[in-house]
């Protein structure tokens, strides 16, 4: 193990190197670029024995990744925003063909009102595609989660692609202290990839032909069950990771001071760190505030969420994305899961288009949750230049 001071993008590149990925198709897009630049350096310096394929678009990047994965080798790629949107069509292939591709999405807003800054509106729509989807909080978690991702994705009970999402610029270009594990430990944690099906002339297989209505629905069902089965694998892998490297993340979700909490915020990504500081403040004043860090959007931890929220009076959800003229997608999922719980639920939108989310915003959100301001007429917006409330 060595300690480096690196950005989350570079932490990801180190994880990919340690995972001994063999094929890496790439197309440059801000703020993902640092990942691919460092991987290209590793390969050209002979430090990573892999193929770097500079494709001509993100659509082709995902197509190359699909080809490489169905060819039977460990495959990695990364994207952001417009690039992920361009991949959209191809994202539906790996889940149904059961290809354990790992992709890092560096979250960034989608145009129009174009910008390169942080928002979750690029990855949230892709939760319908069948990819497992995880959100990380800091650079260490970015590195660790890529290693966990391969272990989860390639488990024979799962065999699904996994998208690790990290917050653009807040993590991707910000340096932090990161422990980079040694190769031997990683080799122990992450065995070689053994594909279940692959294209090999010695055993011809028909992979992903046209599927008529007689069979297609069963395939959808199997995919749905595989996503469900991944819940258990995610928890197991987190356990194993903890035993190997000494760090645990809680699997599907992580709680903070929830034991006796009366009200809480559910967040994902970097906002969690800010919220943790606010919870500490509130606790020092004797308030019974808690925090839930949602790590996975798919599989969505419905049972786990019911368990940790059962004694709550009110729960707020922080959304860094928006389903236009509706609620944030995280809130919609949470409300679906807790619809019969009787807890006052509210949606809190902030940080869109790269707008900074400050301690003050989070304090305001907690005070709104504490007052039980359940949303009746829509989501509450924080940090707007002109407050609508």
């Amino acid at each position, binding site marked *: 193990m060595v300690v480096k001071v690196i950005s989350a993008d570079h932490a990801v590149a180190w994880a990919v190197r340690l995972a001994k990925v*063999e*094929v890496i*198709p790439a197309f440059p897009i801000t703020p993902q670029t640092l990942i691919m630049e460092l991987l290209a350096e590793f390969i050209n310096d002979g430090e990573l024995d892999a*193929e770097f*394929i*500079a*494709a*001509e*678009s993100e*659509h*082709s*990047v995902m*197509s*190359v*990744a*699909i*080809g*490489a*994965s*169905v*060819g*039977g*080798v460990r*495959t990695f790629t990364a994207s952001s925003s417009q690039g992920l949107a361009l991949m959209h*069509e*191809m994202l539906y*292939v790996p889940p149904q*063909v059961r290809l354990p591709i790992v992709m890092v999405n560096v979250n960034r807003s989608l145009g129009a009102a174009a910008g390169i800054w942080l928002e979750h509106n690029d990855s949230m729509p892709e939760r319908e595609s069948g990819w497992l989807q995880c959100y990380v909080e800091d650079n260490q978690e970015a590195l660790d989660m890529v290693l966990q991702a391969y272990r989860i994705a390639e488990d024979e009970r799962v065999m699904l692609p996994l998208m690790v999402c990290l917050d653009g610029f807040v993590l991707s270009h910000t340096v932090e202290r990161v422990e980079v594990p040694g190769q031997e430990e990683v080799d122990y944690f992450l065995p070689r990839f053994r594909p279940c099906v692959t*294209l*090999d*002339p010695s*055993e*011809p*297989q*028909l*992979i*992903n*032909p*046209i*599927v*008529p209505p007689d*069979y297609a629905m069963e395939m959808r069902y199997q995919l749905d069950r595989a996503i469900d089965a991944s819940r258990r694998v995610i928890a197991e892998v987190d356990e194993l990771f903890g035993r190997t490297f000494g760090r645990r993340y809680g699997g599907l979700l992580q709680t903070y001071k929830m034991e006796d909490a009366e009200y809480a915020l559910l967040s994902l990504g970097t906002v969690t760190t800010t919220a943790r500081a606010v919870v500490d403040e509130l606790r020092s004043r004797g308030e019974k505030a808690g925090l839930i860090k949602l790590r996975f959007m798919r599989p969505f931890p419905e049972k786990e969420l019911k368990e940790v929220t059962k004694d709550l009076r009110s729960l707020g959800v922080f959304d860094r994305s928006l389903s236009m003229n509706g609620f944030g997608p995280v809130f919609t999922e949470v409300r679906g899961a807790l619809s019969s719980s009787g807890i006052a639920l509210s949606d809190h939108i902030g940080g869109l288009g790269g707008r900074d989310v400050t301690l003050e915003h989070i304090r305001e959100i907690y005070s709104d949750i504490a007052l039980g301001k359940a949303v009746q007429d829509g989501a509450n917006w924080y940090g707007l230049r002109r407050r609508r409330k």
Partner: protein
Amino acid sequence: MREKEVEKLTIRDVPNKDYFIWGHGACPGCGVAIAVKNIMRILGPETIVYVPASCLVVFGAQYPFSSFDVPYFFSAFENTGAVISGIKAALRRKGKNALVVGLAGDGGTYDIGLQALSGAADRGEDVLYLCLDNEAYMNTGIQMSGATPFGAWTTTSPIGKKIKGKRRFKKDLDHIVAAHDPAYLATLSIAHFNDFVRKVERAKAIAGFRFLHVLTPCVPGWKYESSRTLEIARLAVETGMWTLFESYENESRVTYKPSVMQPVTEYLKLQGRFSNMTEEDVNTLQRWLCMKWWIHYKDQVEAPPCRMFEAERPLAHDGDPLHGV
């Protein structure tokens, strides 16, 4: 296979074993099925096939059946160049040496797939890209593509009162691919079979990015009698609508020269898709062909026309949508 051996190959050298077997759902007389069946015989068992959205993806393999007796994969329409790049990369990593071939249609190559084709050619991927050119989007019901010839009827270039058929000439895809310096590039006709065999064998033997372009007549799309597929494929070459050439090792050469240029009407009159061409449009097409003829054959093959031929019979239609005149 050595150069001299390839030069001697004929139709007799094609193996009998099929890797695109019976049971597929193509129309009788389908040019794509004829081309793929013979190409797969020559490429043999050490082949991995990728088919993008096209007729072939529908009639070649539908779960749980497949006419391909080799590994087969499909994922989308526009990504043939990219997917075969990925499969080949995986094989290289595993130290395996199968031929990775993409079997795309003209829409999936000329139009929506051009970017991925260019990317793969530009990277010099060690793959074989095959374009099965039936000159329109046949899988979705005969819509015009970049490959559709001038004057042809399709459902998106209908014969209207004001505009009659496609108004642009066929896109010169081979020159676009040639500009990428591929390892091998050739045009094929199912009616010139010795030439066909040699070119597929050569493409199989050479390493690097290889591009084969086959003209594949389409019975319902071109509206002709299904027994006439080969006749029409042959006339395409004899009239200059299709030229047989190959390009490799920095040299380009015509591989079959018609003895004399046939008037394009000989080709047009067999096909319902051209049945409503005006005389002026036929002249326009003929002039364009004469220019192409000169570029391809220079003065090696006599081209008496370019003054117009007189049509033996007027171009008229018998009313049957499947028939030419």
